[in-house]
């Protein structure tokens, strides 16, 4: 077991150090996240729409596209700096590598999402009442689902002629239920009053994360190897 953990830790720490030096994944996620939110503000004048109508869709659309561009950057970097070849040459367990990559991508995503959320709070005048525990639980579960699928498809898209463009094509259809659950769940949480119906969406998100984390764990090796 310790070999598994040491591989996961090594992959995780190397990704973090590479990101710490260049910061291009984080900048991508934050930049595109903010740009999408601002675009939403111009598209749906916040004054005329109730908060819980715009914010969920705006937030998650920002997270989706910023996240996909961030994943594209991360996969491109692995290709360029020999990171992937180094991994391939080693007999390291591919599942452990997947867990390491999954965690580092999750960290980058959550960090970027936190910054975008801060701006969204200011721009949409959200306050403590809205940012309850369920809100952050949905944020976490949605992001983990995104990363579970994204970690695999980031490598797949790098091997296609279309590269980053292939990522949304592959991911968005499969992420449909996750986006549905995340947006609807966030809307319920932001609507004053009871969070009735939230449980259904949380169960769906948790199920989604589990299914694709296990699928990613088992299939990542094939994609990396190719």
């Amino acid at each position, binding site marked *: 077991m310790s070999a598994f953990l040491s591989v996961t830790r090594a992959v995780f720490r190397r990704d973090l150090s590479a990101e710490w030096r260049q910061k291009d994944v984080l900048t991508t996620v934050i930049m595109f996240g903010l740009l999408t939110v601002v675009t939403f503000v111009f598209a749906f004048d916040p004054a005329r729409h109730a908060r819980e109508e715009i914010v969920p869709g705006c937030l998650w659309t920002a997270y989706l596209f910023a996240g996909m561009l961030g994943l594209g950057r991360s996969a491109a970097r692995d290709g360029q700096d020999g990171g992937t070849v180094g991994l391939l*040459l080693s007999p390291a367990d591919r599942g452990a590598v997947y867990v390491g990559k999954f965690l580092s991508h999750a960290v980058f995503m959550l960090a970027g999402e936190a910054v975008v959320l801060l701006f969204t709070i200011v721009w949409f005048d959200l306050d403590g009442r809205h940012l309850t525990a369920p809100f952050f639980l949905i944020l976490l579960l949605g992001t983990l689902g995104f990363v579970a699928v994204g970690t695999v498809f980031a490598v797949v898209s790098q091997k296609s002629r279309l590269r980053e463009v292939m990522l949304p094509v592959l991911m968005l259809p499969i992420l449909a239920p996750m986006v549905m659950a995340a947006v609807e769940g966030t809307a319920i949480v932001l609507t004053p009053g009871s969070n009735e119906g939230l449980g259904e969406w949380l169960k769906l998100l948790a199920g989604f994360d589990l299914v694709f984390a296990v699928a990613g764990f088992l299939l990542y090796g094939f994609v990396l190897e190719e």
Partner: protein
Amino acid sequence: MDTLLSARGLSRRYGRNWALSRVDLEVGAGEVVALLGANGAGKSTLLNLLSTLHRPTEGTLEIFGLDARHHHTRIRARLGYVAHATLLDDGLTARENLRYYAALFGLTKVDRLVDERLEEVGLSRRAHDRVAGFSRGMRQRLSLARALLHDPELLILDEPFTGLDAAGCRDLAARLEEEKSKGRAIVLATHQLERVLSWSDRALLLHRGRKVQESGADRYDAAGWAVHLAEVAEERT
């Protein structure tokens, strides 16, 4: 000398053209084989196949008695590859780089092992410096240390001497000779035959993806081979 590696009819195709076509190769334990040929002759393609990085389109490859198509993970645990790219992370120090690979290879007593390898390649003093500041020669030596970390039975090198100055080449040649004396089999691709002549057992010439010449186990001299190479090259163009 039992065979460590045996390749039969090894071919690799990229799209429509054959980068490598029907190459046979035997490497015994502790044997040193030099791979010669012009750029694009298929040297790197062959080494990528031997290191199990890529799968052959045709042909069979057995390393340590294991079929490379199915047992590549177990093979990689006993094989070291120094490719063109050093596979090192510029942001990490020499020691951190080796610790990363030690973790990937699931090695134990990592600190002692890393210090030993750094000592062997003469980089102990620079253990805590970031690789970004290393010269080409130092990177090559660290890359060699990386490839030798798990004490592989077979070491594969792709043009290790390119980019090194005369002193660097002599130093690297000496190190490789030392590895041979430890009984480690080596397969290396190079243009500079004379550097490996004295301690390599056999040489093999590739041209346009095909094996055109292989010197026998008997002694051969660099001058003879150099002339020979020139003739073969002329004939072909």
